[in-house]
């Protein structure tokens, strides 16, 4: 090959000026044969791992059962190692799967169209805010304080870059958005968009009522629904039903491994009005030269590879494979499976609520909830969580981390994977650590 190229050695291909030569040997991990590398990484994995603790952790990442057929299908080499489907004729499989994903998201959210995925729920919210700003020409955004704190923080990161201000609508004492104050804020200031999350970070149903929606319309702001627990879409009235025009969400619950935070899969769904502002790829159905049904990436003129600095977003790589996983999950579960799982989640969270109440720990809110709830342990949540940890239980999230007024509160999730035994274990432990006089 060197002869064909007309050179004497590999070095001739890799010449660099002196100032760019390596000055020291590289310091990277050592090379290991496959069986040793497996052992090494598996050993690292087992180091001080909380994976076997009884877990009530939620807060935007949920333990749900992924049917085995998902990985059997999604990990097929054709799917796993394919590139973005720009050459449509050899990518019909993936393109159709994404068309199905787009369809499922629309059916679940009540929207007209959905994109091929964005990175996650937090960036979906940030991108939706940008859509709203493009739609209205306004530079101020309103978000409920009950939206996931990480989502709000990411929104702020993105908005700082665009010199956009964010106002936060406060909470009621019952863990929902204060719609009356929201309406007042909407009377005062022109907003690009208003975002509420339902179920919200506390697990509570939290939507606009008729009066609040009216205020949003009068203001001219775009109402945006945020979804962090996608399974809730199978049970609860759609965001469309309470007036959302854009839905920004996270679909990790649909079979995507919890995997220490990623990769997950965000989605943006919207009404037809915002079609040309939506970021990310879109798959459309069309025909080929012989009239056969065919799928293709479409409306690409919105995207970075065509519009460059005038693109609706800089997004290139998305979360396609995770969207495929979610699509297969939805196909396997179907209407009946999803209803059943959602019902189980409702059942388990109520079982949890009853068990903790019987253990003498009160629920902090009375608002209706899906599969997460908040308990008030009457002392710094961190202390109680530490005591639970010693008993092999990850009891939930210390809300004081984000909401100083809820420093004695714990956010707990119960899903179809939570067993009655685990709930009983938690309740017993809670009773023990929170009894009057218990020195935790």
């Amino acid at each position, binding site marked *: 090959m060197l002869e064909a190229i007309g050179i004497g050695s590999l070095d001739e291909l890799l010449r660099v000026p002196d100032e760019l030569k390596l000055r020291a040997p590289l310091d990277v991990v050592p090379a290991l044969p496959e069986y040793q590398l497996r052992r090494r990484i598996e050993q690292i994995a087992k180091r001080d791992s909380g994976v076997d603790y009884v877990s009530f952790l939620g807060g935007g990442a949920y333990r749900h059962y992924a049917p085995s057929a998902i990985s059997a299908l999604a990990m097929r080499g*054709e799917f796993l190692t394919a590139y*973005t489907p720009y050459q*449509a004729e050899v990518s019909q499989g993936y393109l159709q799967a994404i068309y199905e994903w787009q369809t499922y998201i629309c059916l679940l959210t009540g929207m007209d169209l959905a994109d091929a995925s964005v990175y996650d729920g937090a960036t979906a919210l940030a991108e939706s805010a940008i859509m709203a700003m493009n739609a209205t020409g306004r530079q101020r955004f309103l978000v409920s304080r009950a939206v996931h704190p990480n989502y709000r923080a990411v929104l702020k990161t993105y908005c700082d870059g665009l010199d956009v201000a964010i106002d936060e609508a406060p909470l009621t004492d019952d863990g929902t958005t204060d719609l009356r104050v929201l309406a007042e804020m909407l009377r005062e200031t022109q907003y690009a968009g208003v975002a509420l999350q339902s179920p919200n970070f506390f697990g509570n149903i939290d939507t606009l009522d008729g009066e609040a929606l009216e205020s949003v319309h009068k203001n001219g702001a775009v109402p945006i629904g945020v979804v962090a627990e996608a399974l809730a879409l199978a*049970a609860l009235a759609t965001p469309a039903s309470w007036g959302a025009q854009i839905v920004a969400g996270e679909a990790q619950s649909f079979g995507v491994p919890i995997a220490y935070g990623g990769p997950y899969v965000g989605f943006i769904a919207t009404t037809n009005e915002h079609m040309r502002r939506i970021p990310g790829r879109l798959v459309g159905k069309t025909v080929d030269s012989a009239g056969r049904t065919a799928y293709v990436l*479409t409306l690409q003129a919105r995207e970075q590879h065509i519009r460059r600095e005038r693109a609706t977003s*800089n997004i290139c*790589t998305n979360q396609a494979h995770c969207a495929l996983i979610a699509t297969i999950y939805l196909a396997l579960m179907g209407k009946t499976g999803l209803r059943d799982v959602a019902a189980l989640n409702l059942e388990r969270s109520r079982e949890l609520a009853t068990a903790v109440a019987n253990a003498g720990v009160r629920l902090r809110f009375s608002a209706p909830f899906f599969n997460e709830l908040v308990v008030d342990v009457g002392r710094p949540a961190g202390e109680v969580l530490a005591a639970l940890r010693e008993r092999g239980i990850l009891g939930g999230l210390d809300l004081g981390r984000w909401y100083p007024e809820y420093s004695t509160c714990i956010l707990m999730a119960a899903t179809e994977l939570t067993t009655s035994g685990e709930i009983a274990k938690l309740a017993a432990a809670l009773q023990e650590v929170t009894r009057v006089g218990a020195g935790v």
Partner: protein
Amino acid sequence: MPEGVLRDDLPLPDNTELDVVRHYTRLSQRTFGIDVGFYPLGSCTMKHNPKVNDALAGVREFAELHPFTPDDLSQGALQVMYELERSFCSLFGMAAFSLNPAAGAQAELAALLIAKKYFRERGETQRDKVIVPDTAHGTNPASAAMCGFKVISLKSDARGRVDPAEIRTVVGPDTAVCMMTNPNTLGLFEERIHEIADAVHEAGGLMYYDGANANALMGNTRPGDMGFDLMHLNTHKTFTIPHGGGGAGHGPLGVAGHLVEYLPTPYVVREGDRFRLDFDRPKSIGPVRSFWSNFAHVVRALAYLYANGAEGLTKVSQYAVLNANYMRVKVAEFLETPYPEICRHEFVASAQQLKKETGVRALDIAKALLDRGYMAPTIYFPLIVPECLMIEPTETESKETLDGFVAALRDIIETAKTNPQELLDAPVTTVVGRVDETRAARQPDLRWRPPR
């Protein structure tokens, strides 16, 4: 639950597992992946994705670990993140890497936000220009626009490079960042990168390295030594993370020492032999995503590093460059290569002359390759080469594969001269022929609707 909270209907189909398995198995058979055939997409580095990486990403302690698990019960995951970061720092000459960004484009955005914040703190808010060469990938200017920067496009010189003299005419007190890649998107090494970096730094700006082409220089030279202050990697290119039909990718963001404090949160910190997530970083631009990283891909990348070590990675780049040059000289025998000199890991060819003579364009060549069992190269990018084909073989392909592709391409060029219609009709062996994209855009059908 109160009235109206629950939904009435859920218009989704019910399917049996068998029907679902058949459906998606068949869809996979209508999808072309690296596992199926040669994928010489320039700028994408479609190298083999080792299966051991997937096995390790699927290990229980990783796949089932909740991101809110307390740090002292996530030590394994944190160690994986730390080891990867330290290796990247040495490989590329950076002081620190954030593993947060979900993709290269998101890393670009984060880097530009860092630059914006850095200049704001120094009272230099007049710096609102980002310089990109005209060969830049579309995400570069798009990311700049998402941060409120204005984009200045720099014309490449006759040799396809950025001319330091040209740089000097555009840098000034309003320069924030110059975004480049090296080798550039033509596959050519920018030998004068150090001069370019000096010019930008003298004007008070920062240098950003688009790491899409990192496969060309491991063990040979480092962006940090070239003078770059910020950079990203596309681990779904250089480090074998599967492309998965368009994602999920992963875009680690590297910075020089003076910018470490600005990295997104959280950052993995080591204290003795323990690790933790550090959120207490007052100068950080903030978080860029819901949780901490595309962690399953961090595992895959680390597994790849362990499979290779420093010596292995050096060979990776050497063979990537060897394969590209071999193909370049072979392709040059029958197709115009506008830059007939030693390239790095990719090269460009142009069908402009062919189009003039026969009417056959880059697009038609691409479609004809599909009929011969190959994925087409990247076409119509970079924008400065008319009827461009950008070819990147990667190091994981054998000489036999490369020779087969070259023979197919040669045959196509011959056919262009003798029977061009055959190419204009291609592909004919695929499950569908050329797709009516105009109709797709004019009459958007983006989802199925249930019958009323």
